[in-house]
């Protein structure tokens, strides 16, 4: 299976990350699939850090999913790593996609949860719609 997203779809995803997360003080937000593919991102970090973070996030999510299954859960739909100054929040968008947020201690976790949920709701229809335009490719 392959995924093609038009310029407009990517633009919309970026806007969602901006409006629901980045404008609340989040350092960086990105969408990945469970294989580690980086779908969309926005924020302060350079791309050279985001690519390995995407790969590690997917692996981290996959590993905890396996743990969940071993104790009789389907998965953990939400993960949160707390550091001294920086934190990472992961939430499942749907079965194939994960939303990852990096934020400092100045942002309340409640705000991240709320923003992630709202963002996920808006992201789902874009990633699952079939009518992607390939105009201008040939």
């Amino acid at each position, binding site marked *: 299976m392959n995924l093609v997203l038009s*310029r407009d779809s990517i633009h919309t995803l970026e806007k969602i990350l901006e409006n629901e997360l980045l404008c609340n003080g989040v350092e960086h937000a990105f969408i990945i699939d469970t294989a580690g593919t980086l779908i969309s991102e926005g924020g302060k970090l350079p791309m050279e850090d985001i690519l390995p973070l995407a790969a590690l996030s997917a692996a981290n999510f996959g590993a905890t999913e396996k743990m969940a299954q071993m104790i009789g859960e389907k998965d953990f739909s939400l993960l949160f790593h707390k550091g001294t100054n920086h934190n990472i929040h992961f939430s499942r968008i749907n079965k194939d996609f994960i939303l990852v947020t990096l934020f400092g201690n100045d942002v309340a976790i409640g705000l991240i949860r709320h923003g992630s949920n709202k963002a996920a709701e808006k992201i789902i229809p874009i990633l699952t719609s079939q009518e992607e335009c*390939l105009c201008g490719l040939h």
Partner: protein
Amino acid sequence: MAFIDMKRNEIQAKLVYYGPGRGGKTTNVLHIHKTMSRQICGKIVTIDTKGDRTLFFDFLPLSIGKVMGLSVRIQLYTVPGQVLYNDTRKLVLRGVDGVVFVADSLKVQQQQNIESLRNLVENLKDEKISVHDIPLVLQYNKRDLASSSIPILSHDEMEHDLNRDLGVPSFPASALKGDGVYETLREVSKKMIRRVTHKLRDGNY
């Protein structure tokens, strides 16, 4: 899963180095990272045990140029070869677009090569991928040992063991010295990109 981003004009595809433990997968990636320019190669991530055994995976993003006006980004991963770590291998194999199978030329590894290839076929099947469909290249690594006293498998033996049914491109290599590393990478990348762009041309999306 290959991903095409029409805003950045970019293709992203996932390449996995597979094979028996200690066969030289990580050594391939380290050589690529050491010798490629920083413009092509991103940051490397390795998750290994205290020694040098891969515990989870190695990761290296590569920007390898343009095809049909799209920049091609390959996300390179290795799996842990140790038999024990099959759950981890399956995790890394998720959404794979191409595979390099790194076989060990050491005679004592003959059976491990065959078992690891069988394990690849099984794990691909769980991903709903046929080994005959996916872009796949074999690498017969550690050929430098031919000049030592350590018994190694002949090229023909390895072809017979591993490539008889598959009939895919295969390359002798010494990842330690860097021989054959780029030939392998180039061939599998070509196959992967051809696969994605064919579908694009046919408008199969």
